[in-house]
């Protein structure tokens, strides 16, 4: 065998290498491992324990008001739910489409759905695929409605609560919500309409539904 290879010309050797690699391809299996994921259980557990996996609704609201452009918000619900209402800078990527999305691995991404469950599952999927900056919106849309859109102040507020509510009221107005003053000690939440979607959108996202610039990769 060694003699055979020594006697071969350069072209011959190239041909042998090519043939060998081609032949091995019969046994090497599928090249599509893109859907595979690795879960570093220790690292993920630590992230969860330190709450570094979450972002609160107030924090997110502040980011949006300050006009920060270094993050993306992903709405994991259906197209219909998204159309009815979504956070101003949010893009709609239903869970099924997470694998093929335009999300980049180094971006800061905040995930939300109705509460926190779906977002937590999506967080796990994306972390397993190596996404570094994913966060769960703590409490999801429910918490957003509760704290940001429809903040409430009880009938007999403490001074601290008054101050807090004044601030919350401004934030709520920014997002088109309706601050509520509750009667007496009641904690019942009156039904309020969801704000229309003509929202002050974060400049970077270019408003809801603005397509990311289409990457032309043909020839």
């Amino acid at each position, binding site marked *: 065998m060694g003699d055979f290879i020594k006697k071969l010309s350069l072209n011959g050797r190239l*041909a042998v290498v090519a043939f060998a690699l081609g032949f091995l391809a*019969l046994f090497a299996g599928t090249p599509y491992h893109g859907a595979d994921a690795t879960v570093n259980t220790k690292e993920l557990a630590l992230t969860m324990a330190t709450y570094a996996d979450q972002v609160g609704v107030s924090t997110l609201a502040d980011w949006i008001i300050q006009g920060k452009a270094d993050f993306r918000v992903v709405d994991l619900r259906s197209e219909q739910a998204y159309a009815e209402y979504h956070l101003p800078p949010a893009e709609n990527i239903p869970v099924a489409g997470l694998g093929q999305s335009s999300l980049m691995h180094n971006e800061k991404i905040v995930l939300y759905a109705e509460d926190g469950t779906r977002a937590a599952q999506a967080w796990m999927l994306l972390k397993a695929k190596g996404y570094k900056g994913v966060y769960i919106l703590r409490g999801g849309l429910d918490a957003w409605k509760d704290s940001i859109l429809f903040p409430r102040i009880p009938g007999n507020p403490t001074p601290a609560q008054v101050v807090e509510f004044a601030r919350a009221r401004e934030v709520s107005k920014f997002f088109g919500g309706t601050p509520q003053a509750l009667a007496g000690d009641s904690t019942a939440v009156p039904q309020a309409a969801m704000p229309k979607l003509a929202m002050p959108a974060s400049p970077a996202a270019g408003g809801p539904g603005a397509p990311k610039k289409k990457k032309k*990769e043909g020839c």
Partner: protein
Amino acid sequence: MMAPFFKFGLFGDNLGMVVAFAVGIGFGFFLERAGFGNARKLAAQFYFTDLRVFKVMFTAIVTAMLGVYYLSVFGFMDLSLVYLTPTFLAPQMVGGLILGMGFVVGGYCPGTACVGVATGRIDALVLFIGIFVGIFGFSELFPLVSGFYNATPMGQLTLPQVTRLPYGFIVFAVVLMALGGFAGAEWVEKRMAARKVEA
């Protein structure tokens, strides 16, 4: 799984342009090394005297194909993130036919025309201008041809998908075909050279 680096956000668009330029330099360099800046060398393929177009093209395809396959199999690359141009079978076949005609009439293809121009070939420059005219004419007449242009869309389609054979099988088949083709090409060239001596 780290490659393709750009798709994993390792660098941005601006550095991507630098990569484009660098890749282009490599591309042009090896095209010229192969002799593809010269229309006579290119056209010789179609008169069986010098089959280097076939040899270079398919060696390149096999090399890149094997590289992509094995990098993906071993998990260094996510193949699903590499862009695959969608298939439009009929217009691509007709386009290929027309391009082939243009190749033997003009002597260069768009890429090799650039190499020809860079090495001083005036015929390459004329062809280069012709390409602009062709693209312009096509685009101006686009409403007339857009129906056919968009016909037979098949989405992103690979040979393994079409044949329903495993990817690795097709890789082996392509290697075999290429090696067989190379052996055949060497034989044809020898025969043509011998015939030239006899003549």
